[in-house]
């Protein structure tokens, strides 16, 4: 009885592998397999500085952290207040500018999510996530 249930479970587990492998093959070039953020969408602090005035900094951290301190000239843009803050941010963007989004540290996801929404919903190009986030920026600048 137990073995039959286990056997059935293994059959389903094995069957599910087939389309999953097929789908993985189909998406092989559209997915970053080693890192949640593809290298082409990351920017280091040095790179961002080298870009100079064409960089627009976007702070994806919570309001209180932004209020405490932030990269000079950065705009606050969080998912919680997306509809309110996006219209304030967009007039500052123009073609040719590079948007660099950061959150607290390497481990946070807010920058990645905000950058994705800027690309997908606001249709912006050249949107990058700052490697190491705010922690890294502070380390390199203060």
């Amino acid at each position, binding site marked *: 009885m137990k073995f039959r249930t286990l056997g*059935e479970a293994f059959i*389903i587990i094995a069957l*599910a*592998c087939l389309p999953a492998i097929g789908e*993985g093959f189909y*998406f092989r070039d559209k997915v970053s397999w*080693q890192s*949640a953020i593809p290298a082409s969408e990351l920017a280091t602090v040095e790179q961002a500085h080298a870009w100079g005035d064409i960089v627009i900094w976007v702070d994806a951290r919570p309001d209180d952290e932004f209020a405490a301190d932030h990269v000079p000239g950065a705009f606050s843009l969080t998912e919680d207040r997306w509809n309110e803050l996006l219209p304030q941010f967009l007039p500052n963007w123009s073609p040719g500018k590079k948007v660099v989004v950061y959150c607290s540290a390497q481990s946070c996801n807010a920058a990645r999510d905000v950058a994705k929404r800027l690309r997908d919903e606001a249709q912006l190009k050249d949107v990058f996530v700052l490697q190491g986030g705010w922690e890294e920026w502070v380390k390199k600048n203060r």
Partner: protein
Amino acid sequence: MKFFWRILGVIIGGIFVYAGAVKVLDPVQFGLDIDNYKMLPWFVSVRLAFYLPWLEIFCGLALIFRFLYRGGLSLLTVLVLVFIGATVAAKARGLDITCGCFGHASQHWSFMQHMAIDLAIFCALVVAMIKEWLGLALSFRFFGGVGRH
């Protein structure tokens, strides 16, 4: 009564087929959702993102068509239990996560809404499991073998 169990199987199965299908359409987003739990390295999360939706679909179909039924039921029970555990653990660590269980539909659910839906599904699965095992036990007792249910 047999009709009730059939309907229950179709409803639970349908939920998982739907949940799997919306994730199959956007595996990258589901990978990010798994990554948000901060429990697995990315290379595991992204591979699971391609596999788990299909597992849900196959288990759901097993419940709907009552083919490999017990295997599907057991797998879904384990999956939901693991998911509830992961969600509670994420909450305990202060992570603000979207589960991604039903694609965009579940993106703005609160933690309590997640838990209510998950526990309801888990209870339904457990009830169906108990019925299945009790049915098997009775068939062994009275007929000396595995019967059809």
